[in-house]
C-alpha cells in the first residue's frame, strides 16, 4: 500500500497523531479528564462550521474555537459554583448546536462536514503533514518540560498550590494542549473519534505498567501502533480509516483487560 504517496503521508500522520495523543492521554487518564476531552473535541465542530461559512481554513477556526472553549471551561469551572460536568456539558452542547445551526444555513457544506466529523486522512497534503508534525512536537515538548509539575498537581493539587507551583496556569495549559491535539487529530480520525485516541491507548498502557515514564512511552507507542494497524486494516478491508484506527485501539484495550485485568 506504500506505493501511493497519499498512503505514505497517511501512515506518517497516523504514527505522529497516535504518539501525540498517547503522550497527552497519560494525563487525561491520570487527571480523570476524559469528559473534558469529549467536550473540547466536540466543540471543534462549531469552529469548523465558522471556518466553512467564512471561507477560512476550518482547521484554523476549529483550533481557535477549541482553545477558546478549553479556556472557557477552565475559567467557568474556577468561578462558577457548579459541578465540572455541568460546565463541560453547557460548552459541549452549546458549541455543537452552533455548528449544526451554521451548517444548516448552507447545505453545500455537508460533504465537508462528514470529513471533519469522521476524518479524511487520505486527503492530507504534504503542507498539512508538516504543520501537524510541528504542532505535535510543540505538544510533546511542552509535556516533557512540565512533566513533573503536572504529575505533582495530579498527585495533590492543594499541596502544589501551597508550595507556590503555578497550578492554575498548568491546568489551563493542559486544556489548551487537549484543544491543539484535537485539531492535530481531526484529519486522521475526525472530531467525533479523536477522544478515543486520547483515552484508549493511555488506559491500555495503565493496565500494563504503573510507572509514569513507562506509561507515557507505552501509551505513545500503542497510539502509533493502533494508527498503523488501523490504517492497514482500512486499506485492505476498504473501510473508513478513522473508525478502523479507533477499533484497533479498542480491541487492544479489551485484549489487555482480559490478560491484565486488575480484578
Amino acid at each position: 500500500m506504500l506505493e501511493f504517496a497519499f498512503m505514505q503521508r497517511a501512515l506518517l500522520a497516523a504514527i505522529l497523531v497516535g504518539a501525540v495523543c498517547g503522550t497527552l492521554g497519560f494525563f487525561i487518564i491520570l487527571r480523570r479528564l476524559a469528559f473534558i476531552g469529549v467536550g473540547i473535541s466536540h466543540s471543534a465542530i462549531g469552529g469548523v462550521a465558522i471556518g466553512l461559512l467564512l471561507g477560512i481554513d476550518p482547521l484554523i477556526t476549529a483550533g481557535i474555537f477549541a482553545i477558546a472553549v478549553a479556556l472557557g471551561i477552565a475559567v467557568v469551572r474556577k468561578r462558577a459554583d457548579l459541578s465540572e460536568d455541568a460546565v463541560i456539558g453547557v460548552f459541549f452542547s452549546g458549541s455543537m448546536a452552533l455548528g449544526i445551526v451554521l451548517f444548516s444555513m448552507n447545505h453545500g457544506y455537508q460533504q465537508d462536514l462528514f470529513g471533519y466529523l469522521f476524518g479524511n486522512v487520505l486527503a492530507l497534503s504534504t503542507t498539512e503533514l508538516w504543520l501537524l508534525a510541528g504542532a505535535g512536537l510543540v505538544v510533546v515538548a511542552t509535556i516533557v518540560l512540565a512533566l513533573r509539575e503536572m504529575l505533582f498537581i495530579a498527585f495533590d493539587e492543594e499541596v502544589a498550590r501551597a508550595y507556590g507551583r503555578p497550578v492554575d496556569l498548568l491546568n489551563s495549559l493542559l486544556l489548551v494542549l487537549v484543544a491543539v491535539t484535537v485539531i492535530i487529530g481531526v484529519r486522521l480520525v475526525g472530531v467525533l473519534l479523536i477522544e478515543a485516541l486520547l483515552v484508549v491507548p493511555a488506559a491500555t498502557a495503565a493496565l500494563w505498567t504503573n510507572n509514569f515514564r513507562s506509561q507515557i512511552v507505552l501509551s505513545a507507542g500503542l497510539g502509533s501502533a493502533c494508527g498503523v494497524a488501523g490504517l492497514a486494516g482500512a486499506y485492505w478491508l476498504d473501510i473508513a480509516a478513522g473508525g478502523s484506527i479507533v477499533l484497533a485501539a479498542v480491541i487492544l484495550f479489551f485484549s489487555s483487560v482480559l490478560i491484565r485485568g486488575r480484578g
Partner: protein
Amino acid sequence: MSDGSIIETDAANRPAPGTTVVGVRNVCVDVAGRSVLRDITFDVPAGQFVGLVGPNGAGKTTLLKTILGLIEPKFGHIELFGSSGPRRGREAHSVGYVPQRHAIDRNFPATVRDVVMMGRLCCLGPIGRPRRADWKQVDDMLDTVGIADLRARNIGQLSGGEQRRAMLAQALCASTRLLVLDEPTIGLDLPAEHDFYSLLRQLQADLGLTIVAVSHDLVALAGEADALICINGHMHIHGNPDDVVHSHAIREAYSCEFNFLAGELALHEGGGDHDH
C-alpha cells in the same frame, strides 16, 4: 537515620530562637458565606512545636489553610517569618505541608522517590530536570524519615504510616523552616502514632524546625507539643499543654470534662458538626 549534615535546613538558615515564625493577627475567615474563624490572634516562636486543637467544626483545618495562603482571610492577616506578602517559588517552600489524607490512589504511577522529588520542584532549574544533587537530597531525606528501603516502591503500595512518612520527606526536602501538619496521625495505631511523634520531635531538634500540627486527639498532642492552642471558631486558650488541658477554657470549648488519668473524656452536652 542519617546525620543532620545532609539537610539544607542548616544552622545558618534557621530563624533565631525567640523570633516569631507564624504571626496570626486578628484573622477572620468566612467559608461559603458562613463565619468559621473570628478574631484569631497568636504567635508561634521559632523552634516551637505547637498543637492546634478544638472540637469538630472548630475551624482548625481552615486556620491551617489560611496560614498556608490557600484561603484568604476576610479580615486580619498572617505573617510568616516576619513578612505578610505572598511567597513565591523557593520561598514558598520554606513552609512544608503534610495534608490530612485518607488514601492515596493505589495505582498512582509514581515511586516514593518521585513523590518526594515533587517537594524539590521549586529548587530545580527552568527545564525542571532533577540533578544528581537533588536525588541525593531526596534519598537523604527518605533516610532521615526512616523509609529509605521503600524508595523504589510505588507510593500507593505503602501502608498509611509509611505514606505519612513519605509526605513528611516531601515536605522537608527543600529549605523547609516551618512544618504544618493536618491530622498527621489519623488512622495510625498507637505504636505508629508514638513513632511518628518521636520522629517529629527529632526533626524539630535536628533541623531547628518550627511545627504547627492540627489534631482532633487532644490527649496525644498534649503529651508531645511545647504549646497548645485551642480554638472553636474563636480563640479559647493558648499556653503550655499542662495548663491548657486543665483549664476551664478547654472544657468550655469541647463542652465536656476530661479525665486525663483515665485517658477518657465525658461528654456533657452537644457534639459537633464536620470539621472545616
